């Protein structure tokens, strides 16, 4: 994991990948989105993608023993918002997650499995890198429509 940029000391959050941390992560994203002046739709989309990714890291990244960290950065560029989520957990490439079937009858519809599908539909781009020392960096890119 690299340093947070010197000019944005409050644009990152690092906390244990545990359910107790979810409120802090969501509050961070809400505050950063408001500060970045995102409109309602972009705020919703970024919040949704960030929640799904964080929930997954909390649930899946550290299957063996104590939870390691989850680090989330929020960057507002002129034309896009970039949310980066890093963990030091097991290798996970979201490209491997199959699109869930959304046409089964209600009896056969599985409960769950929608998270990654919603991430991909909410943001314009999802990048995945394996971190050199182990772990994953996901970058969610939400392009912003220019002011009318």
């Amino acid at each position, binding site marked *: 994991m690299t340093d947070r940029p010197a000019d944005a000391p409050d644009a990152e959050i690092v906390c244990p990948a545990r*359910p107790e941390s*979810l*409120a802090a992560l*969501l509050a961070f994203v809400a505050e950063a989105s408001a500060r970045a002046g995102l409109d*309602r*739709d972009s705020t*919703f989309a970024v*919040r*949704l993608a960030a*929640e*799904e990714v964080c*929930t997954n890291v909390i649930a899946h990244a550290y299957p063996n023993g104590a939870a390691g960290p989850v680090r989330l950065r929020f960057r507002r560029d002129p034309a896009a918002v970039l949310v980066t989520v890093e963990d030091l957990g097991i290798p996970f490439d979201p490209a491997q997650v199959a699109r*869930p079937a*959304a*046409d089964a*009858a*209600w*009896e056969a*519809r599985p*409960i*769950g499995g*929608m*998270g990654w*599908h*919603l991430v991909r*539909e909410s943001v314009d781009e999802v990048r995945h890198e394996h971190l050199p020392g182990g772990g994953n960096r996901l970058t969610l890119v939400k392009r912003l429509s220019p002011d009318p």
Partner: protein
Amino acid sequence: MEVNVEQRGGTSVVRIAGSVDGLTSDALQAALHQQIEAGATRLVGDLSAVDYTSSAGLRALLGTLKLARQRGGDLRLAAVQPGVLRVLELSGFTSILKVFPDVDTAVESFGA
């Protein structure tokens, strides 16, 4: 998030307000299942004041839908706001869940 329940004939109108996310979906699911356990299997979710849902909310809705239908009832939604409706559509929930423009229509759909 806040949840309030109002009886309308044989139907429970569950008014949800706020955000349904990983922090609140368990409370929503508990409130909905409590209705069903108490015998109120005809449920209308009034989502007019719900500004957000994630997949955690979808889980609560689908779990409730299944339980209600297994008991001979149903969960139907009313007044779903655009952002939340998009999540329901993206996840294919609008093909299994009935969504009505307002609470009255949803209640009447049970043929009260």
